[in-house]
């Protein structure tokens, strides 16, 4: 018996007509690409011409020039004598500062509100629903301006609200007590982080060993040693001091402590409340997507309530929650650019000032886009990695 290999049908000869799908495909592609190239070339030649008429030189050489713009609220050293490049870096740090803290706070508040919406307590569920509905249906910019106006309407520093000792709320913003960080403190923090990393790996090994022979191996002695004892020892040896500095009112302003400027504080509140309303809906639908039978079956097995939530419900809910959560994080980061409306100097605001000072419109806007595309890509990559980690492993 001879096995007959199936023969591929002979390739049809090309016909030079639009009724041949291959020719049609090629034709349309060439047409569309040609149109796109023509439009870009047209705009580009106009831009070159206009720039030469207005005597604006293209290129990023202006980044090395002295910026001369004051930046009030910065975490890294900056004076108006520094270059535009440094001003841009300050802007990126300011954007990240509001985005990262905003994402963390919005996740916490959004999760709490989302769980509250499912509460059996009628009043709590209703209030959470009202919170979500009101915040979702108002433009973020309106909310931001509203918070900023409220912030400006607060009493002056002398009559500041003082809810707790050391915390002041006035038209200078929110002032919190702080712990000054010296070199010794950083060593201790480093030891803590290192201890946590080592402990995570150790715990994973202990669980892997338990998988082999079924004997439970307690992890807490390692936790005590690595996460508690090690940092304490390092702190003691390096002589770190952990004294808390309380802010003090001197004259018309506060000295010491950590100051959140009103612009930053208003932006943070607006972003966090607005995004948390969306996150609450995502969390609610994620929890509701887990069939009730799952938790009932787990309870029937005699598992404890916390265990059921942690090992049965949450892992399944997270699979539904993570992808839309990623786009909320991206939205929050992009929305942080509204800072320009209240005068918080993020990357967009600084690029806008640069644009007005130098006329380098194309370069400034290209920088904004580059920064945001990079941040977006970073968040997407991280969340995709996390999503792949928690995805259902099918055997």
């Amino acid at each position, binding site marked *: 018996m001879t096995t007959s290999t199936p023969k591929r049908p002979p390739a049809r000869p090309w016909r030079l007509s639009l009724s041949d799908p291959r020719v049609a*495909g090629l034709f349309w*592609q060439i047409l*569309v*690409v040609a149109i796109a190239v023509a439009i870009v070339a047209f*705009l580009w030649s106009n831009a070159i011409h206009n720039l030469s008429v207005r005597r604006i030189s293209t290129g990023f050489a202006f980044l090395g020039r002295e910026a001369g713009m004051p930046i009030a609220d910065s975490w890294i050293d900056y004076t108006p004598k520094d270059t535009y490049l440094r001003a841009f870096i300050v802007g990126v740090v300011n954007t990240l500062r509001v985005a990262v803290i905003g994402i963390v706070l919005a996740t916490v508040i959004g999760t709490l509100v989302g769980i509250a919406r499912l509460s059996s307590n009628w009043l709590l569920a209703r209030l959470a629903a009202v919170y979500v*509905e*009101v915040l979702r249906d108002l433009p973020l910019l309106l909310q931001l301006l*509203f918070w900023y106006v409220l912030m400006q309407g607060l009493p002056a520093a002398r009559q500041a609200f003082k809810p707790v000792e050391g915390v002041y709320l006035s038209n200078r913003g929110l002032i919190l007590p702080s712990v000054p960080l010296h070199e010794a403190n950083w060593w201790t923090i480093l030891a803590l982080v290192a201890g946590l990393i080592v402990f995570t790996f150790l715990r994973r090994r202990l669980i892997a060993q338990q998988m082999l022979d079924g004997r439970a191996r307690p992890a807490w002695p390692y936790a005590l040693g690595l996460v508690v004892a090690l940092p304490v020892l390092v702190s003691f040896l390096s002589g770190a001091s952990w004294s808390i500095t309380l802010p003090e009112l001197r004259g018309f302003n506060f000295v010491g402590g950590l100051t959140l400027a009103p612009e930053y504080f208003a932006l943070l509140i607006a972003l966090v409340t607005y995004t948390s309303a969306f996150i609450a809906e995502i969390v609610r639908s994620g929890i509701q997507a887990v069939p009730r039978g799952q938790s009932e079956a787990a309870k029937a097995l005699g598992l404890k309530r916390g265990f059921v939530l942690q090992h049965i419900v949450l892992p399944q809910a997270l699979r539904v929650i993570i992808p839309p959560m990623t786009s909320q994080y991206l939205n929050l980061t*992009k929305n942080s650019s509204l800072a320009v409306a209240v005068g918080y100097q993020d990357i967009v605001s600084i690029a806008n000032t640069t644009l007005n000072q130098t006329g380098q419109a194309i370069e400034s806007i290209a920088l*904004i886009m580059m920064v945001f595309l990079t941040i977006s890509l970073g968040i997407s990559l991280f969340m995709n990695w996390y999503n792949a980690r928690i995805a259902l492993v099918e055997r």
Partner: protein
Amino acid sequence: MSSVAHVPQDPLPIGPRPAPRALGGHLTAWLRANLFASIPSSIMTLLLLFVLGKACIAFWQWGIANAVWIVSGNDTAACRALRGVGACWAVVPEKYRFILFGTYPFDEQWRPALAVLIFIALFVVSSRRSFWRKELFLLWAAALIVIGCLMWGGFLGLSFVTQDRWGGLPVTLILATFGLAFGFPLGILVALGRRSKLPAIRSLCVLYVELIRGVPLISLLFMASVMFPLFMPDGVNIDKLLRAQIAFILYAGAYLAEVVRGGLQAVSRGQYEAADALGLSYWEKHALIVLPQAIRHVIPPLVNTFIAFFKDTSLVLIIGIFDLLTTAKTAIVDPAWQSFSVEVYLFVGVIYFVFCFAMSRYSRSLEAQRTQG
């Protein structure tokens, strides 16, 4: 052979259990079940009632009991005396014409008002399922042309009003509606392009969508207001509102393309193959078979995108176009009324809320219909 051994006898029927005894009346039973089911729940209820009560009393005192409702002219001394204690609602009757219609000539403001009514009628008609027919496209075209004629004027004795005098609610509605009306077809084309087998077209569409979605809307608006004039040939000068409108159309196109793409993915393969077997061309296949099903799948997320888009039009404040939020912010520049921004923002907030809430309710009812059907 013995008969089937041991057939269990019919057990005696047991009557239904009596209903559990409700403690107290209907209301008490409800309260016990929903507010005081357990000790932690009761503590939570009491805590929430306390906070809610305090908030309500504070708002009542500020917003109603101590509020100033009307003042004569620009004499805001009464309002300023009560600053922080009572609201000054007098700012609303004084400024509402400016907030709603901006600097449109005062005597002609019935025209933007009529345009707003036409917009609302258009939305209501479009939301009814019985109107989802081809004629709806004609209706939209007609309505948008009528609105354009009303706003510009220049015929039938209507005076001509240039775009830079338009403002307030009509501008917000124009930006949102025209953005959607042109962005939606663009989005469909891009979604089809992204699923096309032709690599050059597909990569162009991917580039467009990802580039627009990766950057904030503000940077697109900056581009429209600062960079766009640089890209135009000499002598061509496009109006600021139109430039912002173009930016919005491009922005809406990218986001709607992703929603439509989701719908296209939900249409089963058999539908495509059946259309091919019938010998339909690419455009016939998509217009008659695929797109009607795909769009039906994604109507709720489409409405959610519309809501987000409607709210996003407020960002034109940053490039200085007079939409509803910008007129509100400008209304309180007037020194006499400077310190009453909270009241004005609340007023504008109610307008935005009514539009968005109606849309979100509508989206939810559509979703409920779909899960039932």
